[in-house]
């Protein structure tokens, strides 16, 4: 009998979305980089391939929408925990409609849908770090207090703490979960500061894995039945030093996944999927 908050990292399904051609030119980005669309698409296909074939998840692939250049980053459109899915209200105007397809997909998966209808609220899934025991919500350019409150309302079982995101796009632009109770954190000042805040705010103890590169700290952790701890992380080509750090995780099945192109539009590994556990507790 799976109890409350059991099985962190257990996933059965993943929702992904294809890259529209508009991404190369129109996708939002903090820095001016030219994106090689085909490279990015290949990169994404590889990513989906890993989820589907290597890890055996049931992957729901949503079609790209050319009017939504950022739609590949599905993470921002929904936060799923247990069998509840919070459909967000993305902080960027241009991304608001991304939630429609996501909502339908998650409904089809029989998740309890909670929508963020408050027009004063904004929240990007990229600002939501779920540790298995609690939520941290980054207050960033894309996410505000009200959005965090609605998230707290949607997931009443969990503590929801807010963390100011002073630099970077999202909270998870410099951190993520690397395992149960393991926070992977970038080494930048603001990243470390955010970690301290999270540690102070939490009743739980977390181990930390510090990687030299902030963006490399974004990785995808799963705990899968036949594979144990699985970690999708940056490739040595992108961040050699950070990759070495990940390689120290002996208990994990380490899967380097390239994210070279998507990162140019501020996309990280976690951004490209919404992971779901349909065998959730209860």
């Amino acid at each position, binding site marked *: *009998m799976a*109890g*409350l*908050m059991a099985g962190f990292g257990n996933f059965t399904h993943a929702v992904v979305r294809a890259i529209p051609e508009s991404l190369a030119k129109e996708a939002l980005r903090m820095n001016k980089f030219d994106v090689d669309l085909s490279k990015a698409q290949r990169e994404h296909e590889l990513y989906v391939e890993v989820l589907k074939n290597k890890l055996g998840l049931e992957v729901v692939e949503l079609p790209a929408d050319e009017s939504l250049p950022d739609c590949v980053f599905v993470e921002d459109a929904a936060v799923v925990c*247990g*069998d*509840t899915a919070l459909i967000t209200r993305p902080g960027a105007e241009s991304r608001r409609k991304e939630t429609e397809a996501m909502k339908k997909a998650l409904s089809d998966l029989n998740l*309890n849908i909670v929508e963020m209808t408050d027009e004063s609220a904004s929240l990007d899934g990229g600002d939501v770090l779920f540790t298995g*025991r*609690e939520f941290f*919500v980054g207050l960033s350019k894309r996410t505000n*207090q009200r959005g*965090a*409150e609605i998230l*707290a*309302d949607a*997931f*009443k*079982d*969990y*503590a*929801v*703490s*807010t963390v100011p995101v002073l630099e970077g796009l999202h909270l998870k632009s410099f951190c993520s979960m690397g395992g149960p109770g393991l926070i992977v954190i970038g080494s930048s000042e603001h990243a470390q500061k955010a970690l301290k805040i999270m540690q*102070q*705010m*939490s*009743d739980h103890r977390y181990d930390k894995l510090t990687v030299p590169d902030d963006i490399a700290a974004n990785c995808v952790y799963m705990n899968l039945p036949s594979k144990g701890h699985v970690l999708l992380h940056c490739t040595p080509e992108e961040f050699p030093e950070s990759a070495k750090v990940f390689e120290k995780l002996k208990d994990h099945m380490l899967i380097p996944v390239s994210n070279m192109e998507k990162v140019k539009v501020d996309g990280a590994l976690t951004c490209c999927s919404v992971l779901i556990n349909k065998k959730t*507790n*209860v």
Partner: protein
Amino acid sequence: MTTEVGSETEVKKEPEKAEQPPATATAPAPQEEPVSEAKPEAEPAAEPAAEPAAAEASAATDTPASEEQQTSESEQAKAEEKTDKKEKDKEGGGKGISRFLPPWLKRSKSQSQVGPKENAPKEGSVEAVKEEEEKEKDKKEDEAAEESKVDGEQPVQASTADQSQEQKEEVAEEAPPAEEAKADNKEEEKHSIGSADTQPAKEEKGEDSQEKDTEDAKPENGVEEGEEAKKEDEPTDKADTSILSPLRLTKKIKMVMCQVTMLDGSQFPCEVEKRAKGQYLFFKVCETLNLLEKDYFGLSFKDNTDQTCWLDPLKEMKRQIRNAPWNFSFNVKFYPPDPSQLTEDITRYLLCLQLRQDIASGRLPCSFVTHALLGSYTLQAELGDHDPDEHRTDYTSDFQFAPSQTREMEEKVVELHKSHRGMTPAQADTQFLENAKKLSMFGVDLHHAKDSEGVDIMLGVCANGLLIYKDRLRINRFAWPKILKISYKRSNFYIKIRPGETEQFESTVGFKLPNHRAAKRLWKVCVENHTFFRLMTPEQPTKAKFLTLGSKFRYSGRTQAQTRQASSLIDRPAPYFQRTSSKRISRSLDGAPVINVISDGSGPEGGKENGRDPALELSSDSKSADDKQKSQAVAAATAAQPVVEIEETVIVEEVRKTPKPAAASEVPEVQAMPSQEPQEAAKVAVEEKKPAREASISSDSESEEEAEYHPQITSVSVEQIKEEPEEEQEEAELNKQEPTPEPEPIAVAESEIAPAPVTVHPVVKDGTPNAKEEAQPVVEMVDDGIVEEEMMLTPDEAPNGYSASDVQGLGSLEEEEQEPRMNGDASHVETEHLPQVICCSEPPVVKTEMVTISDTFAAQKSEIATKEVPIVHTETKTITYEAAQLDGSGDGEPGVLMTAQTITSESLCTTTTTHITKTLKGGLSETRIEKRIVITGDSDIDHDQALAQAIKEAKEQHPDMSVTRVVVHKETELAEDED
């Protein structure tokens, strides 16, 4: 009544004994005849000597005096019991001081009532005063009658004693003990005074008879006294009042029916003595529940603002609930973070019931799925396996799984219930708890507040520390180790934060609570939670450590560590208890005796203690926790209390100014501390000036409550203890404009005028309520009025997080609270006596309190911890009440000394020094009478009574004078029953 009394006394005996012995010792001395005889002998000798001597001298006295001595006579025994009760009551109501304080001190509250009463003849006045007091305190008329009776008796005694000043002194001394003496005196004194006879009879007969007797006695007394000089009468009256209070106590056997709402929703009616402390009822409830792991639980009640408050086990219930109905509810006070570590299923079951309440009420938010899951475990525990035949569609409707329960949810619950097949009720409860404990708001006690910018936030107190919420979001968190100090002042709540790695300085975060009481409530909860979850052992009871300013509040129960240890010793077959739907009553049906914990005798004691003796409880708890040492400690604790010697000095200073009020120079106070082991000395200096000078007193108005708690956990608790008390003192001093470095010196500091012998009416007070107990009443007063409370607890946490820490500041709070009360309430007695003066003009009173704690044995404290041997600490407390002097000439302009008189009288336990000075200042003659009364004994002294008595005497003796200054100096050796 008699029967009731007997039963109660028996119940109480054990707890009382510890305290009583001291009280009894002092008590015997007071008796008139015996006293006079005994005096020569007793005076030199300390308390111990006094007891036996007194006993021998007067047969009546002796029995009560020493518990050890067997009371062969049933009457005597009864009397003792009564006295015990009285003492207990005193303890409970010890704060009564305020009652006795001069009207000008209190003024605001009861003038209207006082006025009419005052008009009544002196004898009547006393009664009236008492009545008023009672009214305020909700005392019953019967009690008043009793008191009045007492008065009558006392006057009689006084009359006899009046002949010689010494005798008078004796009388005064007797007065406090009088209660005991009365009982004892029955036979002896009967002949001398009718009233005396009545008294004993009263005691035996019961309240009703007592009332009648008192009435009778009054006239008699009046007749006798009438011939004698008024002065004499006055003193006698005063003595009576002192006596009266004890009598009241005795008679307060009044029972009250409490309604306790149990966790299953049932009502548990329980009859308790009106004066009973919270723990009495709590133990009763636990007994009924067959609950051993009771430290996680508590009783709560709704105050008059509908706020839920925890019932302090060590304080009288009556004083906590005030005017609220005697309705309580049994709740989980400390949510064990890991319920699986609880020893007994019944404890887990009760925790489940609490959590179901929390969930249903919305206090513990859950997701839909969690509601359903927890609900399904509830069904499994209550109903067993799902039975398709029996469990039709609606079988879930009797349960509330969520604040708002939908059909969908119930279906989910049923679906999950079916999956629990084969799970025992205990297993289902365990599963329930294992899931519930993960909820983020599990065990979080939320309090509304505003941050420094006025934004609404919530402060959540939990096992780990303090959580700050804005709406549903956690915006900050302060773990206990991060918190250096917790304090509140007025409606502000502060936490001082340990500097972070990169920070150099501590920071203080302030929050605004809705009101002062909310701030105090939050502070208390923090103190308790910190102590319970972070410390190995609770801080020592404040009373033992120091008489200090401010609230002595601190967590008095076992810590989680202790209770776990105690639980590990539980050796009984799992008690049978019936799980019922939350609407039905569940009680253990097996009727197994509650007490099976080997080392923990608390179960049986609970009933007997009747909540009287906190120390005992602690001790018992400690036993369970620490085994041998604890048991020793317990024994020591029980023994220690009786051993405590108390010195109390009452100084009454009366100033009479004929023409105009000229500033009266302060009279030097003489300190006689005869007692070998002076533990408490209370000096009351009362200066009486003409009423004309007196200005209205704003007794309560300015004070505010504040308290501090330093959660510093240190492996060696001793050090902190020392330091903090000092800090408190300092703070107290700062707060009180006139800090006196040392109590006695302070008194001395007052300028001495030529002493002239005058009639002195020494006041003796017997069993004094423990500081804590006294403090309690005060607290109430404080709340009403304006009082300053400062409390400090410094929890320093050892790296590992668990280590013994001492709370210093807590102790101080009580004291402060008392002060306010004194200012505000105390005056009743005087008011009655001197209605005219009092009513018309109330002199502004400046109250100064100094507390000095000399911890001679500080070095030994560590030993205590290990050996658990009660250690004697000397506490010194000085409280000065001063009426503002209208003409600033007083001290500066000595005037011409006309006469000076010094009279010193000593009795077994009391030394009274009276200075009478007459001076001419600018054509005005001023008479100043200063009385210093030193009471020495190893019994608890009721400071309130002593003070009241002294004031009353002064007023009565010199109706045309006003009390300008009251100094109470206590020096107490406290036996510490630390674990």
